[in-house]
């Protein structure tokens, strides 16, 4: 049997890696919440498993999402991951074809060119030799980009790359050495035996002419094996743990497991799946506009791993979701931050007994303006005008500024207190027997939609107005003003409402498009999410976002969130309006209200 002492570092490292991974994976799975375990049991033998395998292939090996962000960065990750994968896969095929058996020691394919030096024929020999050289070349080009990225991150489209810890550096260095050493070892051996393909062969004959390859070959194989062994042992304790963790993450996510309010074993897997690619740093406005570059998700996740989550990392974030949107691993970055806020939050002790029992009225539609809308009364007034013109049977449930939706409390981790306010609103909603709840504030909207578990239809006014227009209750007149639409974080990235406002705006104005919109829209800077940013810092973020939004030179800036409106209107001379205001100003008032078809109202309520 083929054996040489130099295979030991690799073999020991490999065995250690498998043992550690087995232990880690077992602990993770055992510690999962029982609901999550039920999900796994339910979905394990379903198409979801196949689905997950597909995603592992697309994301863990091909890195499709990183490709989308930047082809160069994508190629770097793909060539390293997929290239290496192909080397292993085809190396195994090659070994199998050569030995004509499935049974060979695990190191045999890895060091195939050391052990097999004769010109003995086997099936597809030439093709294998060519492919193995090709794959090695692909990996090496990726490695070249990776090393360049360390020194000059802009070539992969990143302004900032992650700062590394000592242990990561060691793993990284050994990774850097693996493939150049493999190239050297294979080339030296090729030079010695005058074989090898286009890469190792030609390099080998070059070395044979100029160097004493017979003395260099064995040390190079030792070096290659050592680099591999060291990398394998370092992997579970370095950033490269993200590779196996992400595979597990993809499967669990496909089965429906999620991070909810508490930090669970699944959350831990998410945290470990972060590849520290640094894409989130580049997406973060706090970095781009303020130059604060130590609180971004990549560092936040690291602080969870190191149990050093501080207030700065926790409460500076605006929770705008830009990083989550762009994260190639799909980690629930905002939810993970919330799990930590919950832990750190000091519960206040208010009983909320100052709330008088809710007044209610039976109505088809409930309107909840929300506190921010009360501070931007033009929006409220426009909505009431729209309800009136449309002849809707509605009840304005917080006309006297009753209970808050609860979101600010949730945002700061005060779930128990939030629950008291939510119970108050739920009672009112139940009593009103309404079929639709319309909110003007995307922050309230998300809360009612996701946290209240209501059995009535919750709509943001953008969706609701569009419905009224679509069924013909509301007639609009197209004006000639040029407008730009700003996607509020909560409405866009939060709930995926991108189309409705655009359809509506195209009906009343000329819609211009800024460079960054929809999923990539900026946060206005007014976010409730951050507790640490000063007004001046928020203003810088706001002005930065405004400058980019105003590039198409619109007459009006339209948004669909009272907080965005309030924030932006203080930073520009251009008129800032909520979409409801623009619509209310463009409504054609029908001659006779009675002409309105009751049937149409029914449609809105039912859908």
């Amino acid at each position: 049997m083929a054996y040489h002492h130099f295979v030991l570092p690799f073999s020991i490292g490999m065995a250690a890696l498998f043992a550690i991974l087995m232990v880690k994976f077992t602990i993770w799975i055992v510690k999962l919440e029982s609901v999550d375990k039920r999900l796994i049991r339910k979905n394990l033998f379903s198409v979801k498993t196949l689905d997950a395998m597909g995603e592992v292939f697309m994301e863990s090996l091909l890195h499709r999402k990183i490709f989308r962000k930047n082809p160069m960065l994508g190629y770097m990750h793909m060539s390293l991951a997929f290239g290496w994968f192909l080397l292993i896969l085809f190396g195994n095929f090659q070994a199998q074809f050569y030995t004509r058996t499935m049974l060979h020691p695990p190191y045999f394919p890895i060091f195939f060119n050391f052990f097999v030096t004769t010109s003995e024929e086997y099936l597809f020999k030439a093709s294998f030799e060519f492919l193995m050289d090709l794959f090695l070349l692909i990996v090496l080009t990726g490695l070249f980009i990776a090393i360049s990225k360390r020194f000059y991150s802009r070539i992969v489209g990143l302004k900032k790359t992650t700062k590394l810890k000592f242990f990561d550096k060691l793993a990284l260095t050994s990774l850097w050495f693996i493939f150049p050493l493999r190239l050297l070892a294979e080339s030296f051996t090729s030079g010695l035996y005058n074989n090898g393909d286009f890469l190792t062969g030609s390099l080998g004959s070059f070395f044979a002419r100029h160097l004493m390859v017979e003395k260099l070959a064995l040390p190079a194989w030792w070096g290659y094996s050592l680099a591999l062994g060291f990398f394998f042992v370092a992997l579970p304790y370095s950033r490269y743990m993200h590779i196996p963790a992400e595979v597990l993450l993809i499967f669990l996510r496909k089965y429906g497991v999620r991070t909810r309010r508490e930090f669970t074993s699944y959350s831990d897997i998410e945290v470990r799946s972060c590849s520290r690619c640094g894409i989130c740093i580049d997406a973060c406005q706090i970095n781009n506009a303020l130059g604060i570059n130590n609180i971004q998700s990549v560092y936040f996740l690291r602080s969870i791993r190191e149990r050093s989550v501080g207030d700065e990392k926790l409460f500076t974030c605006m929770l705008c979701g830009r990083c989550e949107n762009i994260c190639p691993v799909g980690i629930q970055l905002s939810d993970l931050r919330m799990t930590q806020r919950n832990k750190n939050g000091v519960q206040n002790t208010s009983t909320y007994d100052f709330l008088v029992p809710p007044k209610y009225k039976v109505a088809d539609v409930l309107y909840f303006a929300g506190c921010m809308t009360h501070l931007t009364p033009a929006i409220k007034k426009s909505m009431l005008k729209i309800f009136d013109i449309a002849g809707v049977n509605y009840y304005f449930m917080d006309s006297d500024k009753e209970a808050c939706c609860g979101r600010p409390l949730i945002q700061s981790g005060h779930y128990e207190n939030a629950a008291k306010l939510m119970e108050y609103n739920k009672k009112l909603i139940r009593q009103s027997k309404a079929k639709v709840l319309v909110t003007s504030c995307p922050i309230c909207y998300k809360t009612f939609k996701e946290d209240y578990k209501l059995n009535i239809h919750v709509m943001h006014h953008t969706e609701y107005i569009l419905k009224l227009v679509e069924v013909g209750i509301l007639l609009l007149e197209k004006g000639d003003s040029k407008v730009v639409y700003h996607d509020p974080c909560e409405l866009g990235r939060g709930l995926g409402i991108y189309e409705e406002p655009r359809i509506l705006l195209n009906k009343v104005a000329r819609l211009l498009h800024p460079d960054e919109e929809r999923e990539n829209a900026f946060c206005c800077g007014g976010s409730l999410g951050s507790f640490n940013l000063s007004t001046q810092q928020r203003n810088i973020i706001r002005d930065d976002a405004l400058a980019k939004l105003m590039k198409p030179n619109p007459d009006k800036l339209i948004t669909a969130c009272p907080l965005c409106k309030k924030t932006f209107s203080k930073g520009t001379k251009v008129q800032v309006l909520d979409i409801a205001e623009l619509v209310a100003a463009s409504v054609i008032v029908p001659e006779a209200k009675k002409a309105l078809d009751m049937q149409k109202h029914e449609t809105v309520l039912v859908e």
Partner: protein
Amino acid sequence: MTKKVAIIGGGIAGMEAASVLSRMDIEVLLIEKRQQLGGHVGEWDHLFPNFRPASEITRSLLNALQNNNIKICANTVVTGIARKAGLFEVKTNQNQNFKVDGILLATGFDLFDAHKKEEYGYGIYENVITSADLEKKLKGGNVLTTASGCVPKRIAMIHCVGSRDEKAGYFHCSRVCCITAVKQAIEIRQKLPNVEIFCFYMDLRMYGKGFEEIYREAQEKWGIQFVRGRLSEAGENIDGGLQIKSEDTLSGRPLKMIVDMIVLMVGMVPAESTSQMAKMLGIHLSGDGFIAHDDVHFGSNITNVPGIFTAGTITSPMTISDTIADARSAALKICEYIA
């Protein structure tokens, strides 16, 4: 040869500086973008602390401008200033081209745009007006009424609208609004003896000569009530009444009140023309957006650009008395420079 100075801005600062310089035998070009001289004071009815008609001020300043050394360029906007051989070349939208030895900037302030404080409902609720709107109504001489033509029974005056309000973008105190509120409240009471007036303030800054006296008079003689608390928001009832929410921070209680009219005491903010002018001339602005002085104590009227001076509220909010004093000192500084 007579020296020449261009004064940009024909408000009270520019007018006073022009007349002082002209009496020192310096030729003055007084450039005003509007038809009329007098600036904001020209639109005011009566002045604190002695209820003197504002027209007296503008009239006496105008009379002092009857001097052969002064050339008034109304409806004129400066479009460019270039430095050439120790002189400034001033270009205007009227295609004029003046060569002058020194420049005095007196472009004043803008009133805070109350629309930006949307929660107070200006431009949304009919019965929310600003202190400047009120002054116009008082100047018109008609009885003060609500939008529906009724005599108001209860009025709230809100201090610090756009001043000392970081979120509104202005950190500074506008210095004249507290005393203006006192003055306007007394005037309303004089005209409408049955109206109740509530002033909502953060603190009252009665620093000037005669200020404390009329503040006391407002309470003792006119029964005006002062509530320490900032207005959080205003809402409108179906009948046009306004519901205000605040906190009485002295008694520590939340407060809800229905009033017929809200007067927003809008602050003084840097004029838009100031930042344009500063950019054109390379003049430094301080963090509040007004023009900066390099020396807090000795630097008044002096900018970082030699030959360019300032007078009046272009550097910070000022009362009329302070503006006149500042204009005189500016005239002296510019005179020293060109001599």
